[in-house]
């Protein structure tokens, strides 16, 4: 385990853009959630959530429909605020900064914490413009730099070879699986630290799903990934830690192996063995 940490740190050094000292000081915790409660109008959707999510790991969130797992994920980049009736209490700190404070600018947060959605949602623009969208809104105009970002991001999402000759074509000409990898590349283009994935393979066929899962394994070297999934085999295959949500509460959060082989809570066991949900 310690060897692995050293190796990860070496990757960080190679990247050169992550402050090792601060990440060690924070004990490698990227998101620290304390007593988080959330309401949609009168509906109490998240109840007393406490979770510490670690850097450069894949954290899976599983649970039946309506358990609050997507809501929790969207709280981490405050996308949940797009629903007008949302109210939260408690605290989420991202690398030591309290992000639920109204003074914390959501635009800053979402630049550090990227998101991949359930249904592939490319813009009706060219492949190139899709990837360049993020850098452009953050002020990059230089064509050469944009070209570099586009290539690097597409390579990062393992889709470069498939699209390099058709960068000017509309993104909606791609297959569903390609569109989703394009969306991942688009997220990489804003150089986030964290990537949130909200059931990213639920609209895809098994072969595309496998490609995305392989990609997640590659990406975790450089990014912290939090993935909501309906598919328990997927959580078991790709995640380091798993949180099991039920009725808006965290029932159990542990190393994935433990969750799937010897869970502490009988409800977790019932869920993963397919007795409900």
């Amino acid at each position, binding site marked *: 385990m310690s060897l692995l940490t050293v190796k990860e740190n070496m990757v960080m050094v190679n990247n050169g853009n992550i402050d090792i000292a601060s990440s060690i000081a924070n004990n490698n915790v990227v998101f620290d959630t304390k007593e988080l409660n959330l309401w949609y109008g009168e509906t109490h959707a998240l109840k007393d959530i406490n979770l510490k999510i670690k850097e450069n790991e894949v954290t899976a969130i599983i649970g039946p429909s309506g358990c609050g797992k997507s809501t929790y994920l969207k709280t981490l980049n405050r996308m949940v605020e797009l629903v007008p009736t949302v109210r939260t209490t408690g605290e989420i700190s991202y690398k030591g900064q309290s992000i639920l404070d109204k003074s914390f600018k959501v635009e800053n947060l979402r630049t550090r914490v990227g998101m991949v959605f359930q249904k592939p949602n490319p813009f009706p623009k060219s492949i190139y413009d899709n990837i360049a969208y993020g850098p452009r809104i953050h002020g990059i105009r230089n064509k050469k730099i944009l070209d570099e970002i586009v290539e690097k991001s597409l390579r990062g999402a393992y889709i470069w070879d498939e699209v390099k000759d058709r960068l000017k074509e509309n993104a*909606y000409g791609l297959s569903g699986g390609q569109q989703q990898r394009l969306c991942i590349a688009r*997220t990489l283009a804003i150089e986030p630290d964290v990537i949130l994935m909200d059931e990213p393979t639920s609209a895809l066929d098994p072969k595309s799903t496998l490609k995305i899962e392989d990609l997640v394994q590659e990406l975790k070297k450089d990014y912290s990934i939090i993935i909501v999934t309906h598919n328990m085999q997927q959580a078991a295959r790709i995640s380091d830690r798993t949180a099991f949500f039920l009725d808006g509460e965290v029932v159990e959060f542990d190393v994935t192996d433990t969750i799937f082989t010897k869970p502490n809570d009988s409800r977790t066991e019932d869920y993963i063995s397919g007795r409900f949900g």
Partner: protein
Amino acid sequence: MKYLNADQVTKRMDGRIAKNNILKMLFLLATIFGLIVLAILIYRVVVDSIGWIDWNFLTGRQSTDAERAGIMGALLGTLWMMLVVAPVTLILGIGTAIYLELYAKKGRLQAIIQTNISNLAGVPSIVYGILGLTIFVRAMEMGNIILAGGLTLSLLILPIVIVAAQEAIRAVPGFLSEASYGMGATKWQTIKNVILPAALPGMLTGAILALSRAIGETAPLTVIGIPALIIPFPEGIFDKFTALPMQIYYWTIDSSLVAEYANLAAGTIIVLLVLLFVLNSAAIFIRNKFQQRF
């Protein structure tokens, strides 16, 4: 079959199919009714105007002499007025729609504004004429110039443009703006780069259709006092003017004095219809050509 009796089903089948065919005929008749009325209208107008639409009619100045009268002045008046109406309604209409749909907090106040805009769309056009007369012609002392007429017609179609633009914004799928917000874009960046490009064809289609309604409006212009006879052509938005529907109106009421005026009115109707047809075609073209598919 436990609940369904095969004999009964067969027995009733013919009746059900017959009912379907009868209703199909009724719906077809409803459609044909509208088409027949339109056909008669166009037929009468065309017959009346045959021989009257010539070069002199299209380019000549107004005149009391039916043989010499032309509609160029009225056509220019209408076009100048559209040059006022189009930018005013587009800017105010799309701006209001963006505010109401994307910035305004959904609450009581927003609901009240929304209801009032929908109600304004149903206010009779002559009332807008009175409003234009009070505000633009009298209070602002513009007189009955093109600018005053254009602003009056802008007020008239503004509610329609706003509602159409709001619908176009609402039709932009939420997943597109989510993708933009998710990358740290501000609301304005999202509106400018994602929502407006997707909504613009719908907005323009609505605006052009509203514009073609404004072109045909007569009542508000009669109220603000457009004169029956103006010999010089209007050369800018501060000139006095007449417009195509006004010309039709005056020639029609005066046709009891000079019978040929009826033919002139019919000719003017043809010109107005052609103008509307061009505008509506432009709307359809824009919708088909620029609509994004996702």
